[in-house]
C-alpha cells in the first residue's frame, strides 16, 4: 500500500478516480433533494452516460416534472418540456444557472471538462477525512480550459480511489462550494459513494443531496440513444 502510493503521481490518482467514477458507460437511478431553510423537495431521475460527451437525464418524479428530459452532446444541452411539447436549447449564458432549482448548475451536469485533462494536479498531503485516509490534491485549471473555478481541492480515498470531498474556489480564491461524498455501497461491479452532498458556503442552511439508488457500469449504449428523437420517445414512455 505504502509502496504503491509512493509511485503514484497526483495525475495517476485523479485518472484512476475518474475512470472509476465514470466507467465507459453508466446508467442508473438517483434522487436529488434540494434543502432550503424553510423547505425541501426531491426529484428522482434516470440517467444514461457514455464517455464524457454524451448524457441523457429523464425526470421520473414529482408528477409535475415527470417526463422532462435533458440531453447533452459535447458542450450543448437541450431540455424537452412535455407540458408544452417544446425542445429548448439551453444557451451558454444559462450554463451557470441552477439546474432544477438545486445547487448544481447546468454546467455541473454537463461536466464537459475533465478533471484529468483540464487541470494541473499537485499532491498536497495525505489527510484523514471522516475516517477515510485520503490524498489531498490541488487542481488548478489550465488557462485554455473553459472552467469557472479558480482552483479545486479534492480528497481522494487511498483505498478505492473515490472522490470523497472537494472544495471549489472561485477566481478570487474564496471558497464557494463544498462537496462531501459518503455512504459507500457496491453498485454493479464497483464500490462507490452513493451520497453526494453539495453545500454552498455563502448561503446558510442550503444544500443539495444527490443519492444514487442504483447504477450499472459499462453496459453498451448506442450513440443514437442520445438524440432529440429519443428524448421525445423516452419522455412519452415515462409519462
Amino acid at each position, binding site marked *: 500500500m505504502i509502496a504503491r502510493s509512493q509511485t503514484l503521481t497526483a495525475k495517476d490518482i485523479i485518472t484512476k478516480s475518474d475512470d472509476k467514477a465514470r466507467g465507459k458507460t453508466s446508467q442508473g437511478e438517483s434522487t436529488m433533494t434540494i434543502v432550503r431553510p424553510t423547505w425541501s423537495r426531491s426529484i428522482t431521475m434516470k440517467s444514461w452516460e457514455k464517455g464524457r460527451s454524451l448524457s441523457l437525464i429523464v425526470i421520473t418524479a414529482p408528477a409535475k416534472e415527470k417526463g422532462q428530459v435533458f440531453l447533452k452532446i459535447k458542450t450543448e444541452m437541450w431540455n424537452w418540456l412535455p407540458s408544452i411539447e*417544446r425542445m429548448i436549447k439551453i444557451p451558454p449564458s444559462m450554463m451557470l444557472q441552477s439546474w432544477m*432549482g438545486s445547487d448544481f448548475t447546468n454546467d455541473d451536469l454537463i461536466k464537459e471538462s475533465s478533471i484529468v485533462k483540464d487541470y494541473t494536479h499537485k499532491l498536497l498531503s495525505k489527510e484523514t477525512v471522516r475516517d477515510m485516509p485520503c490524498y489531498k490534491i490541488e487542481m488548478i485549471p489550465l488557462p485554455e480550459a473553459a472552467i469557472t473555478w479558480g482552483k479545486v481541492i479534492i480528497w481522494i480515498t487511498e483505498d478505492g480511489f473515490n472522490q470523497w470531498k472537494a472544495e471549489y474556489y472561485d477566481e478570487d480564491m474564496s471558497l464557494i462550494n463544498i462537496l462531501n461524498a459518503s455512504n459507500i455501497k457496491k453498485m454493479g461491479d464497483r464500490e462507490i459513494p452513493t451520497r453526494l452532498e453539495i453545500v454552498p458556503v455563502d448561503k446558510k442552511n442550503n444544500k443539495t443531496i444527490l443519492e444514487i439508488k442504483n447504477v450499472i457500469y459499462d453496459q453498451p449504449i448506442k450513440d443514437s440513444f442520445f438524440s432529440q428523437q429519443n428524448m421525445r420517445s423516452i419522455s412519452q414512455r415515462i409519462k
Partner: protein
Amino acid sequence: MTQYIKLAWRNLWRNKRRTLITSASVFFGVVLSSFMRSMQEGSYDQYIRSIVNSYTSYIQIHKKGYWDDKVINNTFKRNQSIESELKRNKNITLYSPRFETFCLASSEDYTKGVMVLGIDPQREDKIINISGKLKQGHYLKNDEDGILLCSVLAEFLKMNVNDTLVLIGQGYHGASAAGKFPVRGIIKHPSPEVDRTLVIMEIKKCQELFSAVGMLTSMAIMVHDANEVADTKQTLVRSLPADLEVMDWKEMNELLMKQIESDRASDMIIIGILYMIIAFGIFGTIVMMMAERKKEFGVILAVGMQKHKLMFVVLLETVLVSMVGAITGIFASIPVLGYYYYHPIPFTGKAAEMMIEMGFDPVLSFSLDPLILLIQALTIFTFTLIIGIYPVLNIWKLDITNALHN
C-alpha cells in the same frame, strides 16, 4: 349687542356700492382660491385613484419581506383566518388574492420576459377594471384556462385572440413551470410599461403552473376611500400573524408620493401668492372706506359716541361684509366646481401624451371635498378680520378736530 349688529348692518347698506365692492373682493377671493385648491386636490386624487386602481389597490398584505424581494418563494398561504379577518373589518369593501411572478412568454417565433398576474377574475375586475380595458376577445371567467395579453406585448409576440402562448419559468421551490395557454383577450393598459409586460390569468391556473397551489404573493384590499386606509392598516397589523406585512398605497408608491409631495409644496407657494393678491385687494377697499368716512366718524364722535363703541361697530361691519362675501362665495363655488368635477378639463397635445405615458387620464380633475370650500372661506375670512384691525386702529387714533376739518 343686537343693537350694534343692527347699527353695523344699516351702516353697510347706507353705501351699497362700497359694501358690494368689499364683499365682492372677498367673494372672488373665496371662489378663486377654492377653484385653485379644488383643482390641485382633484389632480392628486386622480393620481391616487389611478395608481390605486391601476395596480396597487389601497392596502396589500404580503409575506414579510416580499416587497423588497419579489421572488416566488416569498409567498404566503391563503387561509380562512386571514379572510375572516378581512371580512370582519367594516372598512374593507373588497379583497382580492393575487399571485404574480416573472417568467418567459413565447409564441411561435418570439420570446419575451413577462410579468404574470394571477387573479380572481370577478373580484379583481372591481379593483383594476380589466374588462373595461379589453380591446378584443372576452374577459376571463372564473376557473377559465387561458390568458389575457396586454396589447403591446401581443403585438411583439405577434399573437391574436385564440392563439396559444407558451409560458416557461421557475415555479415555487425551484420546480419547473411550463404550460400552454390560449389567448382569451387582449387588453390595452394605460401604462405603457405595464402594457409591454403584463400577462393576466386566472389565479388557480396560475398557482398550478408555478406549483404553488394555495399560495399568494399578495392580497389586494380596497376600502371605501383613502381616509380609511390608516385605520384599517393599523387594525390589520394588529390582528394578522406577524410573518405577514401590511402595506398601504403610499408605501408601495414611494416615488410617486415624493413627486406629489414636492408638487404640493410648489402649489402652496402659488396659493400663497393668490392669497396675497386677494388680501391686498380687500385691504385697498377698506383703506378707501376709511378715507371716505373720516368726516362721518369725526361727527359721530363729536356728538358724544364713545370711541370703543364706534370701534366695535366698525369691526362688526368688517365681519358682516366678509361673511356675506364668504358665504356667497361658497354657494357660488359649488355649482362651478360641481360642473368641473363631472366635466374635467381635457388636456391636449404634448401634455396629454405625457400624462397618458405616465398612466393617467389626460384630464384636469377637480375635487368636491367640502373641506376645501370651508377652509378657503375661513382663510379669506381670517384675512379680512386681520385687515379689519386697520379701521379699528384708525378710529382709536382719530383726532376729532382734524377729522371734522377734513
